């Protein structure tokens, strides 16, 4: 029998701290759905998703109920659609996006990821047609997310693609102007994109994966925040060092990860699918008490973005990885703390007060996943400036052999300091100012590639 105090600690974690499994994502390979035309490919995509994921949501709910740990988000990621629709026109790709949207509705999930392409070294015709289709595809569908990998440590950064994506982000926002540019909130540009990430908007089912797989994203930052508060209340802040608090994060993450993997494996077993990975990322939601920013407050900065914020994020990220790696049989995906401005109420508040700036966010992404995430920027920002911000962010990943990404939303008709809200999980924030707008177009227009970095002489 497990000791009583251990039982009570776990009960407290589940009941009071709202331990959950943040995302169970089914990865589905769609390569076998290719036919000669978009219409029949679309039908096969719907059929395959319906067949594999028909019981997915009910199974997650049943197993969550059995263990008393709810699965908050049930999602699907698919093979990057550029591979499935290579040879189709832009209209053909939009047809496939609609098929994904319809399939998502049929099986009862809220988001499906994988309207994606990898253009880290070059853009083929299929990639090009998909990227050109992105703005309309995201405007006419509600549940489809798109991600484009534009760089990697192995191949460097494809600046032709980055320039094109600067325009695409802007076009995606403008195509959905009636919903404040929400289309851009469903588009993320990556460097070193993993093929097994369960979190949206960047989830894809990579080419090296099995036909179908279950990946899991662990519970959010709230559990870690409560564990830290409890430890500080019990022992007093003056008696604790940062190493003690890092240890507390490790231990809490261990428990959280174990729960996530248990539920994920049970779902995979019930559906007869292989279990893929646990993603250790702390993904905040706009709910109060579920914020990465709050952890930074607890760990000693009075406002997010104050000096020390980067060091704390680094420590948090590392402790989460240590605790989670020890707990799990297979870790993967993004596995780091997210700092999505709109989705994290404490970060959004700091942005509103002007404490958290784009530059400080960029610095913080050097030491955590995943990048400049859910950052609303002025609607009149020019595409070259957007491309240059993306380039800055992606090169952090390329040089440091890590995943980085940019999900920027140029909110149509809004200026810095204006308020924008997407509601639900996508949250709200003020529009962040960009300093030095319009000064990077010569850089972006060079195009070509930033070469892959050297792998020695590390400094």
């Amino acid at each position, binding site marked *: *029998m497990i000791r*009583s105090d251990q039982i009570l600690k776990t009960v407290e974690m589940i009941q009071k701290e709202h331990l959950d499994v943040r995302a169970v994502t089914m990865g589905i390979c769609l390569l076998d759905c290719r036919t000669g035309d978009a219409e029949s490919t679309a039908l096969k995509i719907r059929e395959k998703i319906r067949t594999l994921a028909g019981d997915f949501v009910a199974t997650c709910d049943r197993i969550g*109920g*059995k*263990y008393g740990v709810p699965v908050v988000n049930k999602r699907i990621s698919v093979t990057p659609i550029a591979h499935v629709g290579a040879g189709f026109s832009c209209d053909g790709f939009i047809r496939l996006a609609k098929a994904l949207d319809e399939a998502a509705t049929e099986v009862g999930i809220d988001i499906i990821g994988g309207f994606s392409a990898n253009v880290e070294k070059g853009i083929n015709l299929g990639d090009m047609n998909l990227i050109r289709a992105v703005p309309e595809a995201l405007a006419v569908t509600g549940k489809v997310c798109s991600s484009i990998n534009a760089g990697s440590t192995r191949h460097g950064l494809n600046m032709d693609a980055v320039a094109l994506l600067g325009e695409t982000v802007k076009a995606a926002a403008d195509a959905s102007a009636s919903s404040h540019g929400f289309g851009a909130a469903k588009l993320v540009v990556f460097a070193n994109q993993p093929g097994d990430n369960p979190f949206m908007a960047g989830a894809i089912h990579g080419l090296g994966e099995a036909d179908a797989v279950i990946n899991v994203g662990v519970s959010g930052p709230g559990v870690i925040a409560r564990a830290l508060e409890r430890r500080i209340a019990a022992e007093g802040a003056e008696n604790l060092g940062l190493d003690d608090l890092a240890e507390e994060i490790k231990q809490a993450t261990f428990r959280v990860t174990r*729960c996530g993997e248990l539920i994920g494996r049970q779902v995979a077993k019930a559906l007869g699918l292989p279990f893929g990975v646990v993603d250790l990322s702390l993904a905040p939601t706009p709910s109060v008490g579920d914020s990465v920013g709050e952890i930074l407050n607890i760990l000693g900065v009075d406002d997010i973005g104050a000096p020390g914020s980067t060091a704390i994020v680094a420590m948090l990220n590392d402790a989460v990885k240590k605790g989670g790696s*020890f707990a799990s049989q297979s870790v993967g995906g993004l596995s780091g703390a997210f700092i999505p401005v709109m989705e994290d109420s404490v970060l959004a508040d700091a942005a509103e007060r002007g404490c958290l700036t784009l530059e400080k966010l960029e610095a913080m992404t050097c030491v955590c996943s995943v990048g400049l995430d859910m950052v609303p920027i002025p609607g009149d920002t020019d595409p070259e400036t957007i491309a240059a911000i993306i380039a800055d962010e992606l090169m952090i990943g390329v040089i440091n052999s890590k995943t980085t990404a940019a999900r920027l939303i140029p909110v149509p008709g809004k200026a810095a300091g204006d308020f924008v809200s997407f509601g639900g999980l996508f949250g709200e924030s003020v529009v962040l100012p960009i300093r030095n707008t319009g000064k990077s177009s010569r850089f972006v227009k060079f195009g070509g590639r930033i070469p892959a970095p050297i792998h020695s002489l590390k400094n």
Partner: protein
Amino acid sequence: MIGKSGVNSILNFLKGILMTESNLMVISVMDRDRSGIVAEVTEGISALGGNLADLRESVLCGYFTMILLAGFPGNVTAEQVEKGLAKQTSSRVSVEPAEGALVEAQASEHVYVLSAVGRDRVGLVAQVSRFCCNRGVNILDLASHVDGDQYTMMLQIDLSDIQSLEEFKSELSAFGDASHLNLVLQHNDIFRATNEI
């Protein structure tokens, strides 16, 4: 190919046969705690040719209790073991031939942990265990402790015979409200996952 669980069940089956043939007995010991009880009892078992299969001991408020499972040669009776042990130790010992399942129930997918926290009063354990008994729920393990006037109970229970978990949970919730107990039911695997390495 046989999986790990298959191998385990075969081993358990063989263990069961061997134990049956070696005349298995359950021995319980109780005494005021002092040094030497375990040594005296186990030496006594060895002297009778007994082989120890399993043992649990616990001390509560200075009182020692122990339950042992041991296999003896076929011609040894429970009375002989009791007499033999009486020569070795002054502690109270009772011996029963073991019957029925020889392998402890494996933690199954129906094993849950029920934690009950409430103000200490007479009859709490009786109330909770009666609630379980009335629904055919077997208590596999139970521990409790008092902290001030707060009484905490941890019950490991087997819900194999429960038809609807949802119904049981709602009955439990109503029972908790009526008896002013904070009752939480969680699957055993959650505690194993979060506390075992």
